[in-house]
């Protein structure tokens, strides 16, 4: 033991030295070969063979090798009941790190319940688990959690982070996407049904090709267009816009499914990975025919009902609009006259000219002068504000119009698809520096050349068979290549994502970058074994979840310390213990509602707008005169839905989500940061959500029992999955006794304190 450390240091130094030398050589190689690729990309012909000359020995580009089948030397790996533990244990043995013991049952239940469902266990679930001393009690619980709909509701959020899903377009108008939720619901359902990952992937890349006409497939195909998209009027360069669509699809598919930062290669050969610019455009070429298409997926009856209801509301709106216009008319006239009085002599002369006598320039100026004479709503509103009677009538009309408008029916469902609809496919050009004006050479669809080289050219069938007259089969070919089983990245990338969300960090710590600049796997054998296991389980992700959470590695205590672990692996990369984790924003909100007893388990449907702090609501951008841009559902039960069902706008962020590191949904997010700062305390102490939920929690405790101690026990069980210690009970009684306020206030203070405590916010 004593000689271990110096030895490790020496080894480390040698490794570092070698690493740096290697990095330097690598850099030179890339620079040299980059020049060749660029020259090729610019002049064509595009010979794939040359592009793959760069290192094909990077671990992630080679097929995963099942360590248990390859070598028989790793003794404990074979012996252990769950191979995860064997592979982790082997590594810990090698590093001479002693793992800590297992977590206690209560902590374990809290961990696995939050992890799989995003919610805390109820006191009843806790009691049932604690009294069940049968051998398979934990495994039974895991199966129950995996089968619950809450499982999909939690894990879908991880996927939506990658898709950077939101319910609005972003950019200037940030218009709502009234049908986006269909995709969100599809993800939840697919995860709950344990849809095999190969199918899950195929439907999202080529849903329209694999199952033409299938509504769910059309919804799923919207994956690559879940991110922001600019829609504005005016002189828009359609080619640039189309290119932006394709960039979004290509980069997202590259980073999410392949774990490669393809986007970098759009403007120049990738600096670090063997991905020449041509490879980026070859990948983009798969999507050349796929367009944003809204496909109606409602019945004719639904359409008729919608039209009827819409007309009915419009008929009710009409008289109110007329009344408003009538009220405004004298003001409008007066304002118009005032504007006319400011016309210059020259402008008057142009206005006086009969139409046929105007030169083209004068005709234009005539139109322009009319624009300047337009009276805007802002001017009318300002003018009427000086006349209290008319002002209040106008305000009331506006309010009535607004309230009627809220009754407009939700438009009948449409799938936001990404699909082909035309026979002929546009050509894909390599663009110099990504500029649509600088076309260089035409490319045809092909996967990244380095992978073709490691997998063999035969792994990809370059002659597509058209699915039908409108579907070239290009994206289907890409999907089939991705899930062919020989692909070294697809399975590794997804099992690593699962691992990441179970342990807080992936075996590869850069989950969307498996390239040469990404992290090396902390346990390569384990990663490969899981990847092979996924394929053996026919791509069923739940079986991987089950393997992970039933492993001893997952069940280790988080609060215990092993000296050797602390010394040799203070960051716990090698998993000698579990690492406690702060809840994510959505988990925190859902858990708070759950312990208060008001979480509404209703599933699916259009997103719910939560009440928004006035500071944020008042600033929502609009150029129109709008009564309220954030109509909240008055039904409090709707406001207590799970966070996955909350309406998420790209340009309007909920302070609670913002403070707790929810992603901004502007780019694909593979790993959320965990920050600690004062605005978190402000939102959890001062927001209407925290205070009202705490009060509801308090009321449910008062109803729970007349006994003070029983209430305290219940509160601790709900928040911490344990009873208070004698000391804590004493403090709590004292805290309640010395509080001069009403009973409800006293208990609200307690519940507010509990939901702000570290033990609630951190999962053991």
């Amino acid at each position: 033991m004593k000689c271990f450390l110096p030895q490790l240091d020496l080894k480390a130094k040698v490794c570092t030295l070698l690493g740096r030398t290697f990095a330097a050589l690598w850099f030179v190689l890339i620079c040299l070969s980059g020049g060749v690729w660029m020259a090729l990309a610019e002049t064509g012909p595009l010979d794939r063979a040359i592009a793959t000359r760069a290192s094909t020995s990077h671990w992630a580009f080679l097929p995963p090798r099942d360590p248990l089948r390859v070598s028989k030397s790793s003794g404990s790996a074979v012996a252990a009941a769950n191979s995860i533990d064997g592979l982790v244990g082997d590594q810990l043995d090698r590093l001479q790190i002693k793992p800590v013991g297992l977590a206690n049952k209560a902590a374990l239940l809290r961990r696995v319940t939050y992890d799989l469902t995003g919610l805390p266990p109820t006191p009843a679930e806790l009691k049932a688990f604690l009294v069940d001393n049968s051998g398979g009690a934990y495994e039974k619980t895991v199966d129950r959690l995996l089968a619950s709909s809450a499982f999909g509701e939690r894990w879908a959020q991880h996927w939506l982070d990658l898709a950077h899903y939101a319910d609005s377009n972003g950019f200037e108008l940030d218009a709502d996407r009234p049908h986006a939720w269909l995709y969100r619901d599809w993800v939840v359902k697919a995860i709950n049904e344990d849809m095999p990952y190969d199918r899950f992937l195929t439907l999202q890349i080529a849903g329209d090709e694999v199952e033409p006409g299938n509504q769910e497939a059309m919804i799923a195909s919207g994956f690559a267009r879940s991110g922001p998209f600019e829609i504005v009027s005016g002189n828009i360069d359609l080619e640039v816009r189309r290119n932006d669509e394709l960039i979004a699809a290509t980069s997202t598919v590259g980073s999410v499914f392949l774990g490669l930062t393809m986007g970098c290669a759009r403007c120049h050969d990738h600096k670090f990975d063997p991905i020449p610019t041509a490879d980026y455009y070859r990948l983009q070429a798969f999507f050349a025919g796929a367009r944003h298409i809204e496909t109606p997926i409602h019945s004719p009856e639904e359409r008729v009902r919608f039209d009827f209801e819409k007309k009915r509301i419009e008929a009710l709106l009409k008289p109110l609009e007329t009344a408003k216009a009538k009220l405004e008319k004298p003001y409008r006239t007066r304002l118009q006259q005032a504007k006319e009085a400011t016309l210059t002599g020259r402008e008057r002369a142009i206005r006086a000219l009969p139409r046929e006598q105007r030169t083209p320039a004068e005709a234009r100026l005539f139109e322009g002068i009319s624009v300047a004479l337009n009276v805007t709503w802002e001017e009318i509103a300002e003018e009427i504000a000086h006349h209290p009677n008319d002002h209040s009538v106008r305000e009331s009309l506006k309010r009535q119009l607004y309230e009627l408008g809220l009754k407009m029916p939700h438009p009948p469902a449409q799938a936001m698809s990404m699909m082909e609809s035309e026979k002929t496919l546009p050509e894909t050009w390599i663009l110099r520096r990504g500029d649509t004006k600088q076309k260089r050479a035409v490319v045809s669809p092909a996967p990244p050349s380095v992978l073709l080289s490691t997998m063999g050219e035969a792994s990809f069938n370059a002659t597509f068979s058209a699915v039908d007259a409108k579907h070239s089969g290009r994206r289907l070919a890409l999907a089939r290549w991705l899930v062919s089983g020989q692909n070294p990245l697809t399975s590794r990338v997804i099992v690593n994502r699962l691992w990441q969300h179970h342990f807080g960090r992936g075996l590869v710590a850069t989950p969307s970058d498996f390239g040469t600049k990404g992290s090396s796997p902390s346990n390569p054998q384990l990663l490969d074994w899981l990847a092979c296991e996924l394929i053996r389980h026919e791509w069923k992700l739940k079986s991987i979840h089950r393997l992970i959470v039933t492993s001893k590695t997952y069940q280790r205590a988080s609060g215990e310390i092993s000296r050797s672990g602390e010394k040799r692996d203070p960051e716990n990369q090698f998993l000698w213990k579990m690492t406690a984790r702060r809840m994510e924003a959505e988990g925190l909100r859902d858990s708070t509602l759950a312990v208060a007893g008001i979480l509404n388990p209703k599933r699916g449907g259009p997103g719910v707008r939560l009440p928004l702090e006035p500071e944020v609501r008042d600033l929502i951008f609009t150029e129109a005169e709008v009564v309220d841009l954030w109509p909240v559902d008055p039904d409090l039960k709707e406001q207590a839905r799970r966070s996955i069902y909350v309406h998420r706008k790209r340009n309007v962020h909920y302070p609670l989500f913002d403070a707790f590191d929810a992603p901004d949904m502007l780019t694909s997010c593979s790993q959320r940061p965990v920050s600690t700062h004062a605005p978190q305390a402000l939102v959890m102490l001062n927001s209407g959500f925290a205070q009202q939920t705490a009060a509801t929690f308090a009321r449910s405790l008062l109803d729970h029992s007349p006994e003070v101690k029983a209430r305290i026990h219940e509160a601790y069980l709900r928040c911490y999955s344990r009873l208070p210690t004698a000391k804590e009970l004493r403090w709590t009684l004292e805290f309640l006794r010395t509080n001069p306020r009403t009973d409800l206030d006293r208990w609200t203070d307690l519940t507010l304190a509990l939901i702000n405590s570290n033990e609630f916010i951190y999962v053991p």
Partner: protein
Amino acid sequence: MSLFMFPKPPVKPRFPVTESRALPGGSRRQFLESLGLGFGSVALTQLLASEPSTKPIVAPHLGHLGPSNPHFPARAKRCIFLFMVGGPSQMDLFDPKPELNKLDGKHLPASYGNVNSQFLETDPLCLGSTRRWGRYGQCGMDMSDLIPQMHQHADTIALVRSCAVDSVIHAPAHYQMNSGRVLMGFPSLGSWVTYGLGSESQNLPAFVVMAQPQGTPEGGVPCWGSGFLPASHQGTLFRPGSSPIVNLASADPQFDRTRQRRILDYVGTLNRRHLGAGNSELEARIKSYELAFRMQSEAPEAVDLTRETAETRALYGVDNPRTAEFGTRCLITRRLIERGVRFVQLYSGGGPVAWQWDAHDDVNANHERMAGATDRPVAGLLTDLKRRGLLDETLVIWGGEFGRTPVSQKGSRGRDHNATGFSMWFAGGGIKPGTVYGSTDEIGLHAVENRAHINDIHATILHLMGMDHLKLTHSHEGRDERITNVAGSVMQNLVA
């Protein structure tokens, strides 16, 4: 040691064991960050990361508890960005064009090239400026009658007449003026600056944004987003009044300070029991609650203008209904700067078109209103910063996301968006005062001399604040990102 893993290993741990030993302080870093109130006190993370190195980027910080050191001596310690949303017209404010007036009402001569704009027709008509012009200060800087109070500051500011961005659409141009890119999701200038320099204030955010009360600019919240930098570097919205920050005041007034103190004490008791030995992340959380508690009394003080003299309030136009709103925000800005806030961004314009510099229909009517609301407050801010000795170390920036076209939009009295040549000005913080940098062609359409692309402008701002734009980087999805993307050079002639 730490019980918590660092959430986002920023570089590739090529050799896991060494790497983890070299990165002892993921959570320590977070702890440090939280000491600065989480508004970004950890900085210059990437001094050593400009090449793909295996060196941990966190290491350089471990010695710092306070604000980090810049790359080289900074001329400006703080920055105020006065953002004129919608695009002010250079031809009517800072860049007189007699030639354009001669062409008024005529078709744009082909010799000036194409006009790329959002709504323009293909053969637009020229629109002269009807403003009265003068030359002011010892330097004789041109300014129009729209900004009479700024005339006295001609020798204070450096005017750049050759600015350029890549989009003529508001939102992408907002994003680019703030983040260097026309896309959503990249860190804004304020985020980069606080990421690089940290916070000087223990009780206030390092990066404050004050929007027009009528609404945000078109680009919305992402204009001051932190992109892939830690969320603690995003801009914090401030507003005048007793509760300047969201959730600073209790939603339910029943939760008074005594009651909150009791709750916090109980939380503290629970937390201390739960705390693992030496767990810095959990310690940081405890501290963040105490800071939040302090902030509730100290942040309202920062925006309390009753402590200012009548003379000062008048200087900013707080006593005049026309200028009161923007004047109030300018005066709060000075108070925030005095209290160590690193970056303040003030938006003039947002929400309805009537409240933006977006003069499509009638440039005079629009600019008389917008300049009328901001001229005195802006000039007052410069005067006040100067007389208090704050201007030397404070960089003040004025400008919109683009300028306006010398041609009219469809024959109207208004101008469309122009991204290829427009004016911005800079003051204080190491800027060469009384300078005019760059120029546009004879009608103000394209920059023709010393073109100042937004990448160059950002490079210069960072330079003045002591940072090399090539070195202020952050690794994201396999790429070392910086605000200037793949371009940008410092405009040395602007630097004193």
